[in-house]
């Protein structure tokens, strides 16, 4: 076995473990956390590939399942609206496209949250035995949600073409708008994954809660303008992102810039705080699991 050690040894620096090494609010703490994460990027990618390829490996429809829930919902609600069963306001683009766009953003959050919440419990065997950055598990799980989102974009493109909807040029800003949403989702995921490890109910009830929450978000209907329903646009942290996405696609301007601003700021804060808590909690949890 002729392998060059120098080539592979990245860790020739001395590592010191002390009781309070990982505490503190200083810059060095964040730098260490970030460095650990960057070093684990390849592991993240591997875990992501693993979960993705394994998920649909023995199924017939494969990756179609990624978009199935969205399609079913769109069809169902289009019919309900069209037949007059549900009174939904008018939208500025064909309803199916409208719903699909909203749903895609919503699912980025919802699927992301459910997957990340389960990620730690699924890997419980290796967490206590091997030393690696646990954040990678949560982030790799969120990667799946991103993948599903990308597939849905293709579907959106098809639907747009079908209805001859031409998006405004401002659509290129949509990915930037969604970054804070992704951060917020991962942040919640960090906290929920730990909580799920302790109270398994959380994972089980999450799907139910999220379905309920979807009805409290302007996904299937245009943003309400009347009080008190208009609160949905502000109190629900995901709403601004959905509204902004639709605006940028169709109108070219933001109808709710302040909401978007606050929600984005919240997203960043949630992510940073949650990441820190996650990092600290992991070392304690490992002792007790």
């Amino acid at each position, binding site marked *: *076995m002729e392998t060059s050690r120098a080539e592979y040894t990245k860790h020739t620096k*001395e590592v010191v473990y*002390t009781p309070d090494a990982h505490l503190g609010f200083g810059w060095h703490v964040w730098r260490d956390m970030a460095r650990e994460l960057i070093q684990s990027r390849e592991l993240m990618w591997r875990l992501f590939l693993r979960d993705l390829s394994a998920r649909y490996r023995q199924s017939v429809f494969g990756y179609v399942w990624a978009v199935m829930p969205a399609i079913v919902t769109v069809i169902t609600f289009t019919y309900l609206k069209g037949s007059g069963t549900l009174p939904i306001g008018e939208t500025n683009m064909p309803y199916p496209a409208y719903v699909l766009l909203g749903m895609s953003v919503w699912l980025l959050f919802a699927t992301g949250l459910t997957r990340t919440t389960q990620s730690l419990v699924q890997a419980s065997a290796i967490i206590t035995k091997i030393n690696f950055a646990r954040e990678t598990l949560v982030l790799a799980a969120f990667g799946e949600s991103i993948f599903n989102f990308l597939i849905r974009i293709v579907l959106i493109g098809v639907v747009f073409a079908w209805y001859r909807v031409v998006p405004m040029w401002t659509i290129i800003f949509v990915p930037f708008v969604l970054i804070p949403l992704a951060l917020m989702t991962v942040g919640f995921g960090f906290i929920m994954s730990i909580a799920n490890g302790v109270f398994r109910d959380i994972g089980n009830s999450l799907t139910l809660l999220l379905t309920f929450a979807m009805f409290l978000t302007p996904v299937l209907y245009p943003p309400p303008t009347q009080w008190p329903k208009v609160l949905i646009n502000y109190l629900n942290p995901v709403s601004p992102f959905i509204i902004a996405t639709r605006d940028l696609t169709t109108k070219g301007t933001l109808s709710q810039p302040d909401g978007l601003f606050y929600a984005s700021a919240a997203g960043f804060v949630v992510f940073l705080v949650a990441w820190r808590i996650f990092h600290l909690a992991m070392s304690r949890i490992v002792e007790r699991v």
Partner: protein
Amino acid sequence: MWYGFRDILRDTASLRPKTDRLRRKEFWAVDDVSFELRKGDRLGLIGPNGAGKTTLLKMLNGIIIPDKGDLRIKGRVGALIQIGAGFHPQLTGRENIYINGAILGMGKREIDKKFDAIVEFADIGDFLDTPVKYYSSGMFVRLGFAVAIHCEPEVLLVDEVLAVGDLNFQSKCIEQISRLCEKGTTVVLVSHDVSKIERVCGKAIWLDNGHLMKVGSIKDVIHSYMQDQNQKLYNTESSFVIEGVRKGSGRARVENFEVQNTKGEKVDSFLPRESISFSFEYSLKDVSAYRLWICVVNQAGLKVAGDLSETIKNNRYPNNFVDRAKYTLRDMPFFPGRYYVIAGISDEKGLVWHDRVAKAGTFIVKSTSKIKYSPAMANFYGSVLINGSWDITQTEFRLQDRIK
């Protein structure tokens, strides 16, 4: 649970943890253990179960952070602890190699280079491209092991995990570890098998209940450990042999069993190769032919001398009381340790027990300076002491004639 939650809160608030004192119901899993290893050292961790060996290993691995004191390690740490970590049953062996490798800290390029070596070591043949869920447990372990062992860390932690796989594979593993040692890898080995540690390691640490009992060269530490074990040996009773249980038809009864020396005195310890006698009384009720039976069992429940028996046919006194039956064993071949004697009376064919007393008697064979008790030495001496002699005859011959 509650302590954990409070700890997390304190960590978040960045308050310096009050970890140097114990809270209620807590105990020090590893208490004041200090040692230093240089590159290429091979350290053995010995001690009874629950001594804190695995906890110490977890600290070296960076999974648990010490509550008091500090730990400094230079170099990549690899562990042969959780074999097959990250394996997903639906994915093929090939894919799982990359995943397991990534979790252990190996990059794609590194795995690519070592891929063939890993596959050859694992010896799973064509199964490389089938999903891991179809692997036998042996194949699973071999593959996991192959990846872990090719990780080539600077510090290798091994936790009692070398006992899997067939002999061929086991020897491959030990060979690989030796090769890593030659290249200068520092190895920390945890095992109950003292002989294995003696073979591989140069330094050892003896842990008991979290305390560092002894640290030093392998010989010193094992000597101390063995002395302590010896002491415990004399003090404890084995649980393998059932306490004085008597069974049988009742037509005979063994009483007053004594272990004696050559002078007939009741003794409980002997030197190796001394003569020993077993003496007892028995009574019979309507038994015309019978067999007296003794066997000697060691502490592990292994029979070291079985079927020391005598058959008596044509007993003229079927209802009788016998004053004394004595069995003498000259030049006892028993290895130092504690032994139990099972005595019984059966019918002449040995099929039906009239009376059988487990643990009728017990005795110790002491260690001497020449013949010391230790499990490692058992491998060296064998299970019994043999009293033979050498006879060497030398004739003149020319070396060249013989070796052609």
